[in-house]
């Protein structure tokens, strides 16, 4: 290993609320700045992996461990993982009435850095990040995700990604339910994160739209809770043409 790993997942098995396992012995190694794509048919367990990496208490690690930036974070709560530099863009971001998007991000950065946030600098940074995402400024003062359309919610997630500067961003189906223009805008935001912050990415998707404009280092295929294949960017193309069938039969 030439470079230190950022995320190492070792023999990870996961069950929901202590019922039957959904993920079986997953291994994954992501280095700083790399972009990994996780693909697979519906119900393969992709989102489960995302939630588990972020520490959703409903998902129990029954075996294996997760190392992040040199620490074993398997037992860390979600906030500690966020502080360590991990970010998850939710597939269905939660609506929080009464807290504006802007003050929420400010609260989150304060919680993560422990530093006081300088209001003017913060507002400037927020404004420019919103410009990248072609977000109407008024969204900053609206309650977090409340009444946002599907596209606006996803943009608000990427906005948080740009503002919070994590080392690794896990994007769970960030492209699902978006029209072509919105996918392009969201991709722009992700590229910004990739380039400017040298951030690593784990992109969970079952389509390939969002990947067109991104540089991909590795592609993983998850079927029935098992990572059964890893390849380079060209694998995306192949799946795009032939679908998952070949892998599904491999998994039998």
């Amino acid at each position, binding site marked *: 290993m030439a470079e230190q790993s950022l995320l190492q997942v070792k023999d990870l098995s996961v069950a929901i609320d202590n019922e039957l396992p959904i993920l079986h012995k997953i291994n994954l190694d992501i280095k700083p700045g790399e972009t990994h794509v996780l693909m697979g048919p519906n119900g393969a367990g992709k989102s489960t992996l995302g939630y588990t990496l*972020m*520490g*959703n*208490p*409903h998902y129990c690690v029954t075996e294996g461990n997760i190392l992040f930036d040199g620490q074993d974070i398997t037992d860390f*709560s*979600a*906030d500690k*993982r*966020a*502080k360590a530099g991990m*970010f*998850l863009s*939710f597939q269905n*971001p*939660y609506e*929080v*009435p*009464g*807290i504006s998007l802007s003050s*929420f991000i400010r*609260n*989150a*950065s304060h*919680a*993560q850095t*422990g530093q006081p946030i300088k209001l003017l600098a913060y507002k400037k940074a927020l404004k420019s990040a919103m410009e990248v995402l072609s977000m109407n400024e008024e969204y900053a003062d609206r*309650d*977090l995700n409340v009444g946002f359309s599907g596209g606006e919610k996803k943009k608000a997630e990427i906005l*948080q990604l740009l503002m*919070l500067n994590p080392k690794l961003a896990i994007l769970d189906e960030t492209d699902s339910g978006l029209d072509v223009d919105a996918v392009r805008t969201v991709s722009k935001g992700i590229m910004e994160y990739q380039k400017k912050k040298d951030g690593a990415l784990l992109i969970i998707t079952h389509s390939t739209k969002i990947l067109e404009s991104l540089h991909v280092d590795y592609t993983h295929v998850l079927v029935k809770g098992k990572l059964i294949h890893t390849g380079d960017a060209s694998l995306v193309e192949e799946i795009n043409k032939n679908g998952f069938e070949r892998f599904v039969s491999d998994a039998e």
Partner: protein
Amino acid sequence: MSEDKKAVVDINRSAYDFKDIENEKDFYRLKEGLTEETVLKVSEEKNDPEWMREFRLKCLKLYNEMEMPDWGPSVEGLDMDKISSYVRHKEDMKGSWEDVPEDIKNTFERLGIPQAERESLAGVGAQYDSELVYHNIKDEVAAQGVIYTDIESALRTEYADMIKSHFMKLLTPTDHKMIALHGAVWSGGSFVYVPKGVKVDIPLQSYFRLNAAGAGQFEHTLIIVDEGADLHFIEGCSAPKYNVANLHSGAVELFVGKNARLRYSTIENWSKNMYNLNSKRAIVEENGVMEWVSGSFGSHTSYLYPMTILKGDHSKMEFTGITFAGKGQNLDTGAKVVHQGVGTTSVINSKSISKDGGIGTYRSSVVIQSTAKKAKASVSCDSLMLDSISRADTIPGMDIRTDDADVGHEAKIGRISDEAVFYLMSRGLSEEDAKAMIVSGFANPVSKELPLEYAVEMNNLIKLEMSGH
């Protein structure tokens, strides 16, 4: 860690709980119990006109005849024989801050009242136990003809007739037992008159402090906002905690004229030995607007349902309230509205939070009389349960007597979802902060209606309650 500590210090309850040991020789305290003798003694202290003394005695008779309602929280812990209805400092009320007795001045300084007056208020009244100790109104507001004084003084001015024709005409002594009690021993409070067309840009505030143990506070607030006038009135209350029951049975009567607007905001933070059996009522003339903003955090037991009578056509009422019932508290709160005029509108938004065995009850009534054609009423109440040893009960009533009305009602009960907490934690917030943030967000529709410094106070009270002290 050090920051956490600081946060806790910032919102320490000691800001309200501190006691000033009342030096007995400086205070006059009426003997405990409620008899004709004590009522006459109060009347004598107040130097009442004849009609007022008769009125007090009539109220006492009614009080003795009436029962407490069978629907509310228990008041078993309240023994009138152990309550003194009248406590005052031996020095007279003073208009100037310098003349307020030192011990009382310290109390209000610690509560930040004089500072608030300098920064953001048009006038301030401060009541300590049974008497107002300070009343002041900014010169420019007084110059507009706005009257802000105590009722006793106003009874000796040209406003005597106005007071006589409004005093306890809206809240009448036959309404219920507690208002009869109030009528018998009321003392202190404020009289506000805003003349026709006068708009008071910044709020007036009254602050009530009950410092004596085993005492009652029975202040009377009478506000008349004349045609086309506009006023925001703020009421704050607090008391230190004692092991004996204290009683607050104030009365608020609000008269909102044609095209006038009155906003009445309350942050109630009585100590948790207080029985807060309070009555508030407003009557609104044509096109007038009555707005209530109410935060109930303190008290051991509360009965509080501000009532609005929408008498004039196209008059409006909006109630926004939050109640936080924590350990040992039984807070029964809500709102009442009666639609009489054509095209009248009411909106009730209520939030309640129950925690650590607290009982929070939302209770309301919406009455639409047959004359109230084209009336609109909407009620929305949300309750948040923070554990499974508390109670959150929702008991709303509607009585509709015309088809030409539009009534909507929504109630929800729920908890903080694990998913929401996880989402916030995934952004770096601790579990406690995530929950506090969700609760603050839940309360936001109320806090955003308050002036900034009160919104901050309210958020601090929420944090204080959430930190599970």
